[in-house]
């Protein structure tokens, strides 16, 4: 990452969780959409738990200075559906178009060509290669999808992808599991020193370019030259087969042959077991461990990178094996870099390519991410600016310092072009190339190549102490001499007992944490008792939900099993769901509004916390009877206002004889309208004050010698309310369809009223129609016509089961009532029996 961007990276990083690491960013990006060009974008490659995603951020400033300058526009998961490409811009030399494709989505960005863009692109490509080896899971992106605006969510087409493993439910259920896992991993890492101890392991690393020769001599003098057996062997060869078959088909019998000689050549005082053997054309690498260490080897993985012909063939390149020994990650890289004296830059490039392209399956670690890296091989760097004769002379005089100063690897390394952080032990052995076969004589052929230290071993990482670095002159079958290095390497060894104890300890803590991190709220009261609940006189009680936990609490009132709603129809809860931050409160209103005939209200509400507990809130109250909600039949059987009778007397009254042909209350309301309202304009349309309606309700229910209170319009509205809420509609529900069907013919309508509607209901119906006919006689004064009244009363006299289901009047019902407003009703009235 460019040093100048370090501060910006920190700002971008602040946009993410700490476990979500911003790997690379690109500033000053313009988003292209058709002809539009939106500046001020930043691209960020973010890694979480071995998965990668590309974020497109909108930056308020060209170079953001604080987190508030940034917002996330889009996020694209990097998986097998992801691809990226570049396209030149016709009239521009210094910009290119960077194209990102994810399934059907294609995004284009204009970026400046330079180090930043090539670094960024190569990081993205690398992450794509890593992802294609895995089955990445992108649950962690879900929270960012949530923060993007709706338009972007749709346009990026991410949420609809069925095979994209992002689901809200997933995160809802698994959230704690994910946090838990990464948290535990983190905690374990922090406490690593407590359950590990350092042990020194002997690591033997050998490299030999065998020049295509078959093995014929024992390798003991190379591999077993030390007194004590090493714990780990890493043995690399180059050019084990120079045949075309090996090159083209990557298949050679030499692999097995050389490996057999290696196994025969390892130290006789110990038994070894192969961890992995890997080969690309002529490059072969075997890693072996003393059998007793094998149970402590894990996470073995390997890969090969060809950098030869076409930049990909395996005649040059590298092979690598990574593993974990106890608790330390190791990586061994065997390479064969480009040949020829003058090609040192090509060799530098090969080195970079090997680093960039080496992908260990199921491990996102790059070579450099390992705690210890051992780099071996025929690096092919030569001695420059000295002739063969000069080199030989200097060697004869043992002027190693002069020679090593002319060594290209030392020069390039010093300039930071290759193996930057690697260390090499002092070279005390003669150049290992190029010898006449079966001799210790440097090349005597016509070419007479200058001798060079082509075969090298370097290392990188903590706790590696080199013990020996040498060549082995006894092996003469190749034009190279084998080289070996011996290391005492510090390996972190897990004490299983201590590990188990700390692990258990952490688990327990996390259980505790997890319970502590459950959403917690308290409610100030769980039993709500209302004052006497009266018809259409809403009462509000407030409960206070306080978040006493450590995480935001999302609450919702949920329905009980086998119920259709989270509360009964006499209650409204505002708000019925919401989110409360820790330490904050939320007032919830519970509004009761009685519109039916109940003795008492009672319900248990379930207040559910998402991902946590449920609380029960009991709501109750006694209800006051009202003439508006009981049946008309009951009203016709009592001779006094309803509230003058006790509940028992009312139950008793159900069995009384009919005292009236229409309820007293209807008669009182209509009588008042008849006397005072016939000439009132907009009688049925002006909304009365709520208090007036309450007063009229009480006047009717309690009875009074005073005149009916309130305005004439309030009386008219009370009549409409009365007819709307009475327990059974004036025309019984089961006759509505017949009425609508008969609406075109008065005689049919009349027939229904006379023969099918119960006596009491017929009386009320005709009584109202007669009043309305009377009312229509004054249409000049009150401005009403029969059609208007019919549609107003149609919906009330034939009210739906579900009140307020449709706002618009039913034409059929209006037509039915219309018949009774314009025809003579005398023949419909059945004389009292």
């Amino acid at each position, binding site marked *: 990452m460019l040093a100048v961007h370090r501060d910006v990276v920190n700002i971008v990083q602040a946009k993410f969780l700490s476990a979500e690491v911003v790997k690379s960013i690109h500033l000053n990006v313009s988003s292209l959409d058709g002809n539009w060009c939106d500046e001020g974008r930043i691209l960020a490659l973010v890694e979480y738990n071995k998965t990668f995603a590309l974020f497109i951020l909108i930056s308020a400033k060209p170079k953001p200075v604080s987190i508030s300058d940034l917002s996330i526009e889009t996020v694209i998961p990097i998986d097998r559906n992801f691809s990226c490409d570049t396209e030149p811009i016709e009239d521009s030399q210094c910009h290119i178009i960077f194209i990102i494709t994810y399934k059907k989505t294609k995004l284009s960005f204009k970026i400046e060509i330079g180090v930043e863009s090539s670094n960024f692109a190569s990081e993205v490509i690398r992450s794509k290669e890593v992802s294609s080896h895995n089955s990445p899971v992108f649950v962690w992106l879900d929270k960012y999808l949530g923060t993007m605006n709706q338009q972007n969510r749709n346009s990026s087409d991410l949420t609809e992808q069925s095979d994209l493993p992002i689901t809200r439910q997933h995160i809802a259920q698994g959230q704690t599991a994910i946090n838990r*896992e990464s948290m535990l*991993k983190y905690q*374990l890492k922090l406490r690593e020193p407590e359950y590990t101890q350092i042990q020194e392991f002997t690591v033997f690393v050998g490299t030999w370019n065998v020049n295509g020769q078959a093995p014929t001599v024992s390798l003991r003098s190379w591999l077993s030259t030390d007194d004590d057996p090493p714990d780990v062997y890493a043995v690399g060869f180059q050019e084990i087969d120079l045949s075309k078959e090996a090159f083209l088909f990557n298949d050679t019998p030499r692999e097995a042959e050389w490996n057999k000689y290696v196994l025969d050549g390892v130290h006789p005082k110990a038994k070894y077991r192969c961890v*992995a053997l890997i080969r690309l054309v002529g490059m072969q690498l075997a890693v072996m461990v003393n059998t007793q260490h094998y149970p402590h080897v*894990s996470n073995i993985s390997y890969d090969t990178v060809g950098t030869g012909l076409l930049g990909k063939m395996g005649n040059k390149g590298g092979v690598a094996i990574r593993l974990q020994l106890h608790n330390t990650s190791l990586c061994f890289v065997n390479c064969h870099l480009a040949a020829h004296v003058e090609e040192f830059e090509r060799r530098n490039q090969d080195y970079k390519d090997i680093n960039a392209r080496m992908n260990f399956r199921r491990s996102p670690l790059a070579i450099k991410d390992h705690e210890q890296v051992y780099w071996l091989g025929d690096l092919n760097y030569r001695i420059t600016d000295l002739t063969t004769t000069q080199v030989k002379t200097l060697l004869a005089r043992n002027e190693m310092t002069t020679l090593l100063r002319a060594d290209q690897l030392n020069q390039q390394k010093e300039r930071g072009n290759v193996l930057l952080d690697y260390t090499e032990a002092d070279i005390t052995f003669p150049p290992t190339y190029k010898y006449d076969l079966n001799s210790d004589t440097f090349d005597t052929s016509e070419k007479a190549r200058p001798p060079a230290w082509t075969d090298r071993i370097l290392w990188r990482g903590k706790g590696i102490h080199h013990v020996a670095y040498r060549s082995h002159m006894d092996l003469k079958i190749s034009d190279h001499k084998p080289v070996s290095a011996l290391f005492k390497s510090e390996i972190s060894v897990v004490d299983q007992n201590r590990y188990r104890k700390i692990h258990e300890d952490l688990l327990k803590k996390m259980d505790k944490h997890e319970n502590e991190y459950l959403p917690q709220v308290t409610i100030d009261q769980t039993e709500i008792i209302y004052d006497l609940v009266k018809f259409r006189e809403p009462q509000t009680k407030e409960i206070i939900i306080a978040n006493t936990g450590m995480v935001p609490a999302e609450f919702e009132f949920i329905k009980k099993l086998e119920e259709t709603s989270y509360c009964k129809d006499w209650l409204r809860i505002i708000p019925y769901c919401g989110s409360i931050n820790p330490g904050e409160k939320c007032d919830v209103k519970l509004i009761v509004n009685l519109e039916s005939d109940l003795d008492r209200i009672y319900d248990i509400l379930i*207040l559910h916390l998402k991902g946590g507990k449920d609380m029960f809130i009991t709501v109750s109250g006694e209800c006051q009877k009202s003439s508006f909600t009981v049946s008309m039949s009951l009203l016709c059987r009592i001779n006094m206002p309803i509230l003058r009778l006790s509940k028992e007397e009312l139950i008793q009254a159900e069995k009384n004889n009919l005292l009236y042909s229409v309820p007293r209350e209807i008669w009182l309301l209509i009588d008042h309208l008849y006397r005072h309202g016939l000439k009132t304009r907009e009688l049925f349309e002006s909304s009365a004050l709520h208090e007036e309606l309450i007063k009229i309700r009480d006047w009717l229910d309690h009875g009074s010698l005073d005149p009916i209170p309130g305005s004439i319009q309030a009386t008219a509205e009370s009549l409409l309310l009365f007819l709307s809420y009475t327990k059974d509609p004036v025309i019984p529900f089961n006759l509505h369809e017949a009425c609508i069907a008969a609406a075109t013919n008065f005689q049919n309508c009349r027939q229904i009223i006379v023969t099918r509607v119960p006596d009491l209901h017929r009386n009320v119906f005709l009584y109202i129609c007669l009043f309305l006919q009377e009312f229509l006689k004054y249409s000049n004064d009150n401005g009403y016509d029969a059609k208007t009244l019919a549609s107003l009363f149609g919906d009330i006299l034939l009210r739906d089961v579900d009140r307020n289901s449709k706002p618009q009047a039913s034409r059929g019902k209006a037509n039915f009532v219309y018949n009774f407003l314009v025809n003579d009703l005398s023949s419909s009235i059945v004389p009292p029996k």
Partner: protein
Amino acid sequence: MSAGPYNYSYIFKYIIIGDMGVGKSCLLHQFTEKKFMADCPHTIGVEFGTRIIEVSGQKIKLQIWDTAGQERFRAVTRSYYRGAAGALMVYDITRRSTYNHLSSWLTDTRNLTNPSTVIFLIGNKCDLEGQRDVTYEEASKFAEENGLMFVEASAKTGDNVEEAFLETAKKIYQSIQDGRLDLNAAESGVQHKPSQPGGRPGTAAGGDQPGRDNCAC
């Protein structure tokens, strides 16, 4: 470090039921926090607790729903029985009435859970030997007659609390192994979570082994 050991393979749902004041919440608290909660208020609703345990080397996450015991909530708490893999049915050994109501709790449990739900009877407050109102033998006989697992426990001292929760899990796990509990059934009360690859640190049993056997030795 590899990712192996902290994932759990299963989630088991438990419910704790029984009369008011028998110590259901205290048992849950003792199990999740290893502490006795004195002056525990009545549960008005359903409390929720979680803990990860190990059975036969498998990590299992227990999701425990601790229900209100008051009779008036009975109708509502019935909604929570569904999908429970384990039911801990608690009575108070010092109050016979709580024991007498067991058959009614048992009826609810049998009616509202599936046949493979493990029901564990807990006689709580066994630290109050002096006030004992229900003998061990009597309850033990009741448990045996009804095919229930049974212990006397104390949420106060912690006696047998761990055992009750763990034994229930073992029985459920056994049912899974025997195939008696169908994991695919929506109401089994068990969720299976496939573990991440990767072995314990310091073993070669990792899931990262090369698939191709190119090792000649």
